[in-house]
């Protein structure tokens, strides 16, 4: 049975974690000479030498605990039987791991464990993957002298409340691995051991179930459990998997590596891969458990076409659908001109697929009308970092945070939106790093258990630039600059101009307090901490970029980092936390209308010439339309057709009614997606997409890490997304003949200097690569800007604070800001089709008790939320996380209409929408908004059109 189960990571558990680098120590274990770094445990040293000491409470993802006594050994010259897990190596030690005495000791230990453990191994879900069973075999347990007559835990009550895993305390050996995983790995501290001695038991708090507890379902406890006490329900149902494939998660920008554990082509469970360079064996509720959407009955499985959006769909062959699309595109271009069509690449698809879509637009459509959803999230990062530091990407690895002494988090909520990195950050905070949070909300990071030092700067939405300027003003006027760094690494004239600008008293914390609402002394204290307490690292998210001054704020962050010398080494840096799995990659791959792959501007004749030579066409040297420009042009009637791969612009983009008007104006909308998403309801051609489990490729995460995505099951609709784009190009008369995504990556490497050293063979050999990866950096670049900047010297930028035009008034007295929560992902197309719905089955409006009170609002009331753009209705949740005057919602459910209220205000440089600031009024109502009623009717009609087509073809799919 044990041989049947072969996931790779279970083969190598070294018992205790790798110690920090120490000098080599030599010792003898069972007569074998072993040399390991100082600080290594005897258990790990033995395991590294191929000597396996029995163990139960030890695992190499957790600190040694020394409770099970199974790893007892003998050391010459020492008394007793020390636990190998808690005993560090010493020079010259002579260790014995196996002899008669130790065997007897271990058998006795195992006998006691088994005396209170059900003997139902053959029917146990962990059968074949149980460390207790393995250890019973390893120690040669042959009899249990103590019967079950006395008191025992065999009838302990089970807890099946969590949708993804079960808790069966009768199987528990109280090794505390789950409790320690929750504390050390996840940092939630939801579990504890209640009681003492025989009464000891794992508990999620008094009288609580797992679902009702603080547990965030990251799965760390399940993974740590050596028995079947904590067990995935999918394994209970399906049995043990028989093979596994290492791949990359398709949720957030952390890009966790997972083992997809399979039974044939059935995915049984996703287990975070210990060798993953981004996640080191940790996971969150989305990546770990929320994969059921991939086989959900809503998946589109056949191509479909229709003449107009008020007609039912017609299921057709792939060839007919592609021909239909190509003919329409050609006819529209013939009538309305080459620039009348465009395409949107996906931040959820692979690098190779994204590259192909922008290539299709530039080479086959013959224009640069390509854009991607980064337009609505991190386009200001691209602009701001390229302008100041010379490269459109974050500067660090995730691991770098473990070297940070002061962590400044601005407009980001890592424990919800980037949970695995959030856990790592929490670990560093427990170790004593100082936390500064600049956010209108009191985010959960500020509630980190055992947080040592934290400062919260609760600024008003829309005042980021005033705050960052005030922080920089303190640095400059209090003499906290790193003059050596500035002199050596930064452009002097730009620095002097900036220094003159920022020194002005209008930027002082005292002057900006009236704008930001943040106490001046708190700002001074934060600036001093960041500039002087060791390594200062900045992490930021969409709370920075999604503003009318998003680009200015990114440049302000870069200014602050350069002024304090917090760039170019481990533990510091400017770190954008990217939203979607491959949003970094989609930007890298040339999705923006002004840049070819590798951020090479279309007007750069040398770069363009390389692409023209390779692609065999002339390329336009002018930028194309960005997404909001496409919408405006569509409404005006000059933009007529759009190819959208794996994005749901109708739900995710701001001012929904404007987007709906634009999509309705198109003569041909081609949507390629795995579901009938909101955008697809406006489409004329529907091309079924493939999930990340169904294709090969690569994703690039927020730390520029290129990770392999590996196919574990065939595409449900027979084609991977790259194949569909290729066929569309061919139908348009442009040749594309790739046989495998690796060939696409080879082409990317040949045309993109920062990817020159990337290939599937190199990724196979090294696991992952962080770009730039080329002759100068053959193994990639973990930390950017160590020696110089791609533009030579860093450029300080002038960042004047300009208040947004979106302001509160008597009519709209509250500010709405939007965001995400842990269990749902982006527009929710994936997570809404999983059991993650248990945690968040509707979007609600959070508001402060004082704002609720003056409006007579009680928790759960229906609220009409009205802005200058529109109105929607959500249920109220009264929350002290909010400041008075600020309300908050999420946009995970389409019917919520969160983006009906957001306006078309946008970042001055990139048109990134200002999602984070909308002036609204809130009042109690009794029925859905007019938009919601129209949405509901349209949704019903479109679902009917889909169902009719599927019934005609006999491929009925549940509604």
């Amino acid at each position, binding site marked *: 049975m044990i041989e049947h189960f072969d996931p790779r990571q279970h083969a190598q558990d070294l018992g205790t974690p790798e110690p920090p680098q120490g000098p080599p120590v030599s010792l003898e274990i069972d007569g074998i000479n072993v040399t390991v770094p100082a600080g290594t445990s005897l258990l790990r040293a033995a395991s590294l030498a191929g000597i396996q000491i029995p163990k139960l409470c030890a695992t190499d993802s957790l600190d040694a605990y020394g409770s099970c006594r199974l790893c007892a050994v003998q050391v010459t010259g020492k008394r007793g039987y020390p636990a190998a897990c808690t005993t560090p190596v010493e020079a010259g030690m002579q260790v014995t791991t196996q002899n008669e005495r130790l065997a007897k000791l271990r058998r006795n230990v195992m006998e006691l464990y088994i005396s209170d453990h059900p003997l139902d191994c053959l029917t146990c879900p962990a059968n074949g993957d149980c460390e207790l069973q393995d250890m019973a075999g390893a120690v040669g347990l042959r009899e249990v002298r103590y019967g079950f007559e006395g008191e025992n835990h065999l009838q302990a009550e089970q807890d099946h409340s969590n949708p993804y895993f079960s808790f069966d305390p009768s199987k528990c050996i109280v090794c505390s691995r789950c409790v320690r995983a929750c504390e050390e790995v996840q940092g939630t501290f939801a579990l504890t051991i209640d009681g003492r001695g025989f009464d000891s038991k794992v508990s999620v708090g008094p009288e609580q179930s797992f679902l009702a507890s603080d547990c965030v379902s990251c799965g760390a406890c399940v993974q740590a459990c050596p028995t079947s006490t904590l067990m995935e329900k999918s394994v209970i149902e399906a049995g043990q998997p028989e093979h596994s494939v290492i791949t990359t998660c398709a949720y957030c920008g952390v890009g966790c590596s997972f083992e997809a554990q399979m039974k044939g082509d059935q995915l049984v469970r996703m287990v975070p891969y210990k060798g993953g360079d981004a996640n080191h064996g940790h996971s969150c509720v989305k990546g770990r458990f929320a994969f059921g959407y991939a086989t959900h009955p809503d998946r589109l499985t056949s191509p479909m076409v229709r003449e107009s959006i008020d007609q039912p769909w017609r299921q057709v062959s792939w060839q007919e659908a592609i021909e239909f699309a190509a003919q329409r595109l050609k006819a529209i271009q013939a009538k309305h*001109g*080459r*620039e009348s069509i465009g395409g949107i690449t996906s931040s959820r698809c692979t690098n190779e697929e994204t590259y192909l879509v922008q290539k299709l637009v530039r080479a086959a459509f*013959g224009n*640069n*009308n390509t854009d991607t959803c980064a337009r609505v999230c991190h386009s200001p990062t691209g602009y701001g970092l390229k302008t100041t530091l010379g490269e459109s990407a974050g500067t660090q690895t995730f691991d770098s945070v473990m070297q940070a002494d002061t962590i400044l988090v601005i407009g980001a909520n890592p424990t919800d939106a980037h949970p695995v990195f959030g856990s790592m950050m929490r670990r560093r905070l427990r170790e004593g790093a100082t936390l500064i949070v600049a956010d209108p909300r009191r985010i959960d990071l500020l509630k980190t258990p055992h947080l040592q030092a934290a400062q919260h700067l609760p600024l008003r939405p829309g005042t980021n630039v005033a705050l960052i300027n005030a922080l920089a003003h303190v640095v400059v006027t209090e003499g906290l600059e790193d003059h050596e760094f500035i002199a050596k690494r930064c452009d002097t004239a730009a620095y002097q*101009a900036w220094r003159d*600008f920022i020194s002005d008293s209008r930027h002082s914390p005292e002057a900006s307090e009236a704008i930001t609402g943040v106490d001046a002394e708190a700002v001074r204290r934060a600036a001093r901490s960041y500039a002087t307490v060791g390594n200062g690292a900045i992490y930021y998210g969409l709370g920075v970029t999604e503003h*009318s*001054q998003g*680009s*200015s704020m990114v440049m302000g962050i870069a200014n602050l980092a350069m002024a304090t010398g917090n760039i170019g080494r481990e533990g510091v840096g400017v770190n954008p936390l990217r939203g979607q799995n491959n949003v970094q990659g989609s930007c890298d791959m040339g999705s923006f*209308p*002004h840049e070819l792959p590798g951020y090479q*501007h279309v*007007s750069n004749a040398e770069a363009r010439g390389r692409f023209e030579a390779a692609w065999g066409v002339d390329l*336009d040297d*002018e*930028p*194309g*339309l*960005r997404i909001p*420009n496409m919408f*405006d*042009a569509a*409404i*005006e009637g*000059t933009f007529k057709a759009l190819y959208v791969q794996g994005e749901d612009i109708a739900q995710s983009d701001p*001012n929904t*009614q*404007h987007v709906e008007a634009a999509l309705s104006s198109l003569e041909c909308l081609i949507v390629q997606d795995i579901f009938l998403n909101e955008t697809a309801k406006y489409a004329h051609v529907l091309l079924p997409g493939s999930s990340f489990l169904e294709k090969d490729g690569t994703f690039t995460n927020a730390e520029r890490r290129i990770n392999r995505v590996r196919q574990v099951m065939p595409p449900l609709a027979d084609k991977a997304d790259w194949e569909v784009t290729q066929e569309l190009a061919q139908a348009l008369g442009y040749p594309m003949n790739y046989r495998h995504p690796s060939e696409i990556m080879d082409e990317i490497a040949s045309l993109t200097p920062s990817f020159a050293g990337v290939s599937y063979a190199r990724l196979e050999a090294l696991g992952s690569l962080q770009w730039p990866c080329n002759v100068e950096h053959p193994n990639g670049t973990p930390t950017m800007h160590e020696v110089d900047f791609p533009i030579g010297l860093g450029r300080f930028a*002038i*960042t*004047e604070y*300009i208040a947004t035009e979106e302001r509160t008034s008597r009519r709209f007295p509250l500010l709405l800001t939007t965001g995400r929560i842990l269990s749902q992902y982006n527009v929710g197309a994936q997570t809404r089709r999983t059991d993650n719905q248990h945690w968040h089955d509707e979007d609600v409006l959070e508001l402060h008790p004082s704002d609720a009170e003056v409006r007579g609002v009680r928790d759960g009331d229906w609220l009409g939320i*009205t802005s*200058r*753009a*529109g*109105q929607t209705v959500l249920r109220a949740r009264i929350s002290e996380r909010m400041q008075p005057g600020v309300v908050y919602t999420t946009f995970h459910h389409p019917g919520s209409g969160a983006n009906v209220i957001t*306006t*078309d205000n946008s970042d*001055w*440089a*990139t*048109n990134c929408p200002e999602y984070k600031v909308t002036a609204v009024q809130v009042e109690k109502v009794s029925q859905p*908004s*007019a*938009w919601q009623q129209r949405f509901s009717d349209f949704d019903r009609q479109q679902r009917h059109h889909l169902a009719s087509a599927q019934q005609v073809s006999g491929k009925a799919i549940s509604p």
Partner: protein
Amino acid sequence: MSHNLSHNQDDTLIRMVNQIATNLSGASDEAQVVQGICKHLESFWARSMKQRLVACLDRDDAELSPLAQRAVVELAGRYRNGAQDSAQ
């Protein structure tokens, strides 16, 4: 409720260029600011948008801010309709 934001293309483009001008106006030298606006439009705006913006110079009611106006005048040489045709 129907949405009531103006989406007249000209107005949108004028609003955008004014916003760019405001945000780039931190440099002390006005000529440098105008250059900066010009370069921004050249680098990031589609040809059709630039042509359309340039055409706004002919309108009496185009509410371009003074710095934006100067930048658009500079662009006009290259992007007045016909000066650089969008390929049809």
